[in-house]
């Protein structure tokens, strides 16, 4: 019996965002947008979903006069991401 994959993470864009955030201290919205190649609207919706699940925290502030949204992975999010990667391994003959 294969373990169930976290449906919240089993989505291309959300998984990409979580992969980046798992590797860095925190990342701002423009960096995530550049790395994922997603549109602002789509990325914003997906980040909100991750934030609602408690996987990431979103901090809105300013850098100089420019608005800046910073995302950070939470311990819950990190655990979910690690669980997802471990579950993936069961699907593959590694």
């Amino acid at each position: 019996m294969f373990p169930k994959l976290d449906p919240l993470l089993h989505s291309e864009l959300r998984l990409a965002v979580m992969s980046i955030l798992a590797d860095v201290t925190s990342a701002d919205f423009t960096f995530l947008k550049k790395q994922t190649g997603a549109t602002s609207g789509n990325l914003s919706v997906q980040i909100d979903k991750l934030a609602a699940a408690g996987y990431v925290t979103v901090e809105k502030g300013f850098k100089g006069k420019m608005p800046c949204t910073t995302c950070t992975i939470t311990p819950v999010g990190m655990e979910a991401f690690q669980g997802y990667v471990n579950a993936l391994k069961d699907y593959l003959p590694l």
Partner: protein
Amino acid sequence: MEQNKEMTAQESLALIAETVNNSRKSIVKRSGKYMLVWGIALTIVSLLVFILWKSTGKEAWNYLWFAMPVIGLVPSYIMKSKETTHLPDNTVSRMLSGIWRTFGVFAVSISVFCILYAQFGSSFFTSLAIGVSLSPMILLLFGMAETISGVAVKNTSIKVAGVITGVGGIILYYILGNMSEDGIETTLLFTLAGIVLALTGVILQIQNKE
């Protein structure tokens, strides 16, 4: 990137690997840019000290070394302020930054101590009764910082360059020092170190081309 695309397990793992890899590349590439700036700053200052010291014979030109932080920090600050995307820090960039900051703190502290020792040694530091040779110590620290950077970014050329600059630099220091009375030529070892640091920056930029 689509949010609802059905992915196989293999595709998911590939996506994670690719995303993390691309993100790491942009972050480490930025570290390379700063190393290039500091390498150029070190090369310029060491050449300036060498030329001025050699032409005037005045050892006081060595105080120009204290301009290094300014010459390196100003372009670094300008570069940072011009970044269109604020790049986050990851383990490698934090490690590189930590290694070179530690080197900077040690190098400046030892330099200040050596100057105080040379100026007031007899009155303030007699009880310490030590002799310090500044240049080889800094070259050794530099070589260690460079080698550890090579370990952090998993690059053999950088590791080897660190050993050559650190160990080879000390050997050359004593060879060059014995060749002339004033040892002005030993300043050129820091030019070599500056070139090594700048090349490290170039290697990191090429290695992490997006």
